[in-house]
């Protein structure tokens, strides 16, 4: 049984101000870079203090999970932002040319994180299916074609990541459950992304109807599937049982949409429910999703509760 995180962590307020100052031209890139590094160190410290086993850098440099990548891949262009709901917007990219690998996407972040911690590291990258689903397609004849082209680009990044020492990659694909009819395309894309990459692969999905992607999702060529369970009152564990789930399980058991801090007992209870489905060695306990929208102290407390719960369960089952 291991503890981990999905990816993002609240950004320190001072970092947001420094990013703003950089955009206004008040400070240079060197100062900004130093700020990012300090922010990563503070995230690492929080994760270490909480006792999380497998960590990431909190995505301090990523403003958004689509555009961060598309800005670094040839063939994408961003004309502006579009609304998702209410007053929330995101810079929706357009595919305007052939998608090609241009520069590293997560390698520098990985290397820096490696230099400041001895912890195991997981590298989360938004998957090809989700990035294309959240983009306009002006260039490819079909969505499918665009997804496969992007999968090749990400495959190259993953190969490079392994070369520099990464061994655990998480493909974030929240768009998959929103289009169950295209699950074959998503599956083929995963096949391409992991091709020839000697790493442990997880796939993370949130917000969607899991019922619609079972049992097809079980055929994806990954070692682990990470679901959100807390947000859905752990009801989906039923699906895993029903279909004889046999991969490693990323077990989202902390609600990232609520500021209420879970009790150790309720998290323990949830973990025992998961252990009813998979053996301890197949269980990766984590929050439902990235924690970036929570206040920093709340996120930290939630992580501590999660680790405490895991430790108590470990003791109780003699792991």
């Amino acid at each position: 049984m291991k503890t981990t995180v999905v990816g993002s962590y609240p950004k320190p307020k001072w970092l947001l101000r420094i990013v703003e100052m950089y955009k206004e031209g008040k400070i240079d890139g060197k100062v900004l870079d130093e700020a990012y590094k300090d922010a990563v160190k503070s995230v690492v410290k929080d994760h270490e203090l909480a006792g999380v086993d497998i960590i990431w850098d909190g995505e301090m440099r990523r403003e958004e999970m689509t555009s961060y990548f598309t800005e670094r891949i040839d063939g994408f262009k961003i004309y502006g932002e579009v609304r998702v709901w209410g007053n929330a917007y995101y810079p929706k990219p357009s595919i305007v040319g052939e998608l090609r690998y241009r520069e590293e996407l997560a390698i520098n972040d990985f290397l820096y994180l490696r230099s400041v911690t001895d912890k195991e590291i997981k590298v989360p990258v938004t998957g090809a299916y989700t990035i294309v689903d959240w983009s306009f397609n002006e260039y490819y004849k079909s969505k499918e074609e665009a997804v496969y082209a992007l999968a090749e680009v990400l495959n190259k990044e993953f190969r490079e990541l392994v070369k520099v020492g990464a061994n655990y990659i998480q493909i974030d694909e929240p768009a998959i459950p929103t289009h169950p009819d295209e699950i074959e395309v998503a599956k083929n894309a995963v096949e391409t992304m992991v091709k020839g990459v000697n790493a442990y692969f997880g796939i993370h999905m949130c917000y969607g109807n899991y019922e619609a992607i079972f049992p097809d999702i079980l055929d994806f060529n990954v070692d682990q599937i990470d679901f959100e369970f807390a947000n859905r009152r752990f009801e989906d564990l039923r699906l895993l049982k029903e279909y004889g789930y046999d991969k490693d399980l990323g077990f989202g058991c902390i609600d990232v949409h609520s500021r209420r801090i879970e009790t150790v007992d309720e998290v323990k209870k949830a973990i025992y429910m998961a252990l009813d489905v998979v053996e301890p060695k197949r269980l990766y306990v984590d929050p439902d999703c990235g924690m970036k929208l929570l206040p920093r102290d709340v996120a930290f407390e939630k992580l501590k509760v999660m680790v405490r719960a895991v430790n108590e369960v470990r003791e109780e089952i003699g792991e």
Partner: protein
Amino acid sequence: MKVIATVVGNYPRPRWFREYLRKVEGLQKDLDVEIEKDVLRRAISEVLDEQRRAGIEIMTDGQLTWHDFLLTIASRLEGFEMDGLVRYFENNLYYRIPIVKDKVRRVGKILHDFEIAFDIERNLKAVLSCYTVTKLSKNEFYKRYDDFLWDLCKSIKEEMKELESMGVRYVQIDEPSLLYVDKSEIELLKDAFRELTDIGSETILMTYFDSAEKIFPEILDFGFDVIGLDFVEGYEENLNIVKEFSFENINVGIVDGRNTKMEDLGDLKEKFERIVSSGNFKKVFISPNTGLEFLPRVKAYEKMQLVSKLKEVIE
């Protein structure tokens, strides 16, 4: 045959207005705070001006405060409570799902933003919805769906009457959910829509996101003056509809409102000619197939320009 350039409904908010809303309303689910009327007026007049400059003849107010797309209508009626976020058709857009908790009633103006726009610009159409609002809401109050539909229908009709008395010439009813209707509901819907369309203003039915095969020919008895079809998503099927059934006035949704790709004008012209030569139309509105809020603002503007350029080349 008369051709009129128009748009479907929503339009990207001006950046400054977006920032203003974010400041006064925040990012959470409890939106709908009172916003200053003169600020809203300034934003609306900017959007109207943009439509005018692009060559749009019948405009909309841009639905700048419609946080929940068509479900905004529910948020402005008594009887509904807005709850968690739900995906809006096949789009990466979310609305708060309206839950019916009490008898649905119109207690005040629904289209208060339209009123501001109408004060500035008369070549304007009001946009409402009825069936789609019932279908995308969760009913926890009415025992019979019919009663829910009729109460909503009554509220919408009240609004339409008030619009008529203001001198509004065009009222558009957006009904994307009609494209997925269960045939057993059609008789009930016919009565409700005949009630809605029994009014002096010209009524336009707008459908989008799919083809309209399921509602033909029954829809022709619903009393609409104009029928709007999506020729981006449902081109082949809707072309067959035009060939098979005869109606006088059509809204041809032909420019893709959900992709930043700019269509070739020659291709659009060819497509348009194939559509209109398959029917016998007196009046043809041309527009994007959907509202333009799916696009970044710069592209939304270019799409409107494309609609008016199309009008130029086909005349």
